[in-house]
């Protein structure tokens, strides 16, 4: 009985201590969040004139000037967040001006440094920022990070940054190959990521369509533009004979949506298309 009681008392003390630790942490996190919000609002107010200046000058031929006074780390974060928000929003020359401003303010340089940080949070933040700021200098390191990461949702954040930073088809190809090696059938998501890039992905899709790798073929079949070139038609017909049902269905769908490529009076192909379509209407 005494042993039972002392054991239970020990457990009670342990639980009480863990509760206390948790509660202190909750209060710390809440207070910190409230403090941060106040600070951020204060800085947003402080930069109001500067933001107005950027909006007024975004259409002019002159470069945007960085803020005159030196920035502390939280001010830099607040400013960068706003600039990135605008970079997402704008396209073309406006976006380039904002990216150049980020470079002038040494935000890119700083994030390139953070890309090597041992702290995962800081590293991921840098990955995201560098993607938004389209920094091609980050590419080798981003590809290394993508290669080193195990399969989890973080790899898609890295991949999206790579797509944004990519300046050549090779960058995109390497990114796709690194994603495909996990063999998780994420073809739609990969195409969505590729489309984030400013590079025309059509040649890459053509290349993937001609490849032997089923995943690459599927990516091509998802990402190929609706109005495709006639030179891929023979390949699409060959795909109708592939073992993989998904490839056959997608190839059929593509041929079917481009009726002009169906040979007149070719009942055999039409029958095959109908057969595949019917098979895949099961549910």
């Amino acid at each position, binding site marked *: 009985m005494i042993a039972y009681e002392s054991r239970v*008392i020990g457990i*009670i003390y342990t639980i009480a201590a863990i509760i206390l630790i948790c509660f202190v942490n909750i209060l710390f996190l809440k207070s910190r969040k409230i403090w941060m919000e106040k600070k951020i609002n204060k800085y947003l107010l402080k930069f109001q004139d500067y933001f107005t200046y950027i909006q007024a000058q975004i259409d002019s031929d002159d470069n945007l000037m960085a803020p005159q006074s030196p920035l502390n780390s939280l001010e830099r974060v607040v400013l960068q967040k706003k600039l990135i928000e605008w970079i997402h929003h704008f396209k073309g020359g406006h976006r380039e001006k904002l990216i150049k401003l980020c470079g002038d303010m040494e935000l890119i340089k700083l994030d390139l440094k953070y890309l090597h940080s041992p702290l995962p949070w800081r590293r991921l933040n840098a990955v995201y920022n560098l993607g938004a700021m389209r920094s091609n200098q980050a590419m080798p390191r981003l590809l290394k990070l993508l290669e080193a990461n195990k399969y989890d949702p973080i790899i*898609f954040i890295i991949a999206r940054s790579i797509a944004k930073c990519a300046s050549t088809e090779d960058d995109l190809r390497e990114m796709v190959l690194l994603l495909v090696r996990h063999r998780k059938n994420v073809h739609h*998501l990969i195409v969505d990521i590729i*489309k984030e890039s400013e590079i025309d992905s059509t040649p890459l899709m053509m290349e993937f369509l001609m490849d032997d790798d089923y995943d690459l073929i599927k990516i091509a079949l998802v990402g190929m533009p609706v109005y495709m070139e006639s030179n891929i038609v023979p390949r699409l017909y060959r795909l109708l004979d592939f073992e993989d049902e998904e490839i056959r269905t997608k190839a059929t769908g593509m041929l079917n949506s481009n009726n002009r490529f169906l040979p007149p009076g070719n009942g055999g192909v039409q029958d095959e298309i109908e057969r595949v379509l019917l098979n895949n209407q099961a549910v």
Partner: protein
Amino acid sequence: MRDLLLGYGVFATYYVIVINTLYFTIMLFSFKKIFSIVKNSKFSRYKALSGSEYVPSISILVPAYNEELTIIENVSSLLALDYPKYEVIVINDGSKDDTVNILVNEFGLKPSQRVARNILETEAIRAVYHNPKYPNLYLIDKNNGGKADSLNAGINLSNHPLIASIDADSLLEKDALIRIVKVYMENPEETVAIGGNIRIANGCEIQDGIVKKVHLPDTILPMFQTVEYLKAFLGGRIGWSAINGLIIVSGAFGVFRKDYVIKAGGYRGGYPGEDMNIIIKLHKYMLENKLPYRIAYCPDAVCWTQAPDSLRILGSQRRRWGRGNLKNMLEYGIHMAFRPKYKIMGFLTIPYNIIFETLNPYFRFTGFLALIGYVLTDLTNWHVLLLFSLLNILYGILLGVGALLLEEIGFRRYPRIRDIFKMLFFIVIMFLGYQQLGVVWRFLGHIEFFRNNNTWGTMTRTSFNKDKKTTA
């Protein structure tokens, strides 16, 4: 006799320690997973994805029985979701109120030629309504057959490869669907179901079907349920999903692969607990066919729901849950427990559910009674009872505070410091009557089960505008 009472009391104490330690271990998995959830949520651009043509299309199924007060707001909120390709299928399950007419008038619906396929058996469909002005809204009017039957009817009419089940008294956040579908897109081959996070809407400011400001409920019962849901969804389900042992995806909001739901036989009618039932069947189907799969949970895809605010309604809901749980355990659980082919389900989830959820009322209650009996035979041993109670309460508080910490790390929906203290207060006082009531309701649910009471029970709907009430 005294020794027997003490022995049983000690057994009940260890039962409490084991059940809570197991739950705490699951919570540690939640802590492990929460950081990756936060990172993913912070750096994923859902807005861009919600405009993407590469997102899979989805059919949202809304079973409705006597939902005249909330249905318009619910459907309006669903029609305004940030999602590229989806259809909303409301299934009127033979409501006795004006649900159908209200929908028909509000959205100008007319009888449609669209025919539901006969994939899953359901009660007879009276009509399908549609209005081309709202191209992605359909209404099925069918004979009463229960929630599961309605979901099956919705599946028969649906056009898309994914289905989402949503309660008619719930509101989805605008980006909830894209968040949950992103989880699917990250592993479409293996993901067969994903659960969303259910939060209590009582007390929040709601406008046009959208939660504008988050507040804690002003009344006691919804407040208890708020902390209870935090514990269950953040403390429990994140952890269970991390080890692929999730046994339930809430009927209020979940997304499923339609092909596998059909292969598993669709929703089971005739009994409550259809949300747990479909998940057990999906686990069973995938494991028996040796298919790689996962049942995921997405805590940042939020669905706001109305919590019952009277003891009568809450009791009815909890008894129904008790019946549903018992039915599922008798129908599937006992056949899956400790069988190697069911892996985590067979060795952890199902035994945990049987021993610590289904049988919980019996062990806890009788253990407490045994200790009272023991103390009554010798009042000098009052401290034994005190230790048992203290252990019970402190462990419960620990799980509640752990869930609060997860909320603070990951989501921070309740903005003020006083919200923390209010929730903590309710976490503590829920052990002074509310939890015991829950045990009694579950026990009564079991009695109803053995008396063959399969009804849904009373459910009063309150309009999100707070000024109207109706009973279903």
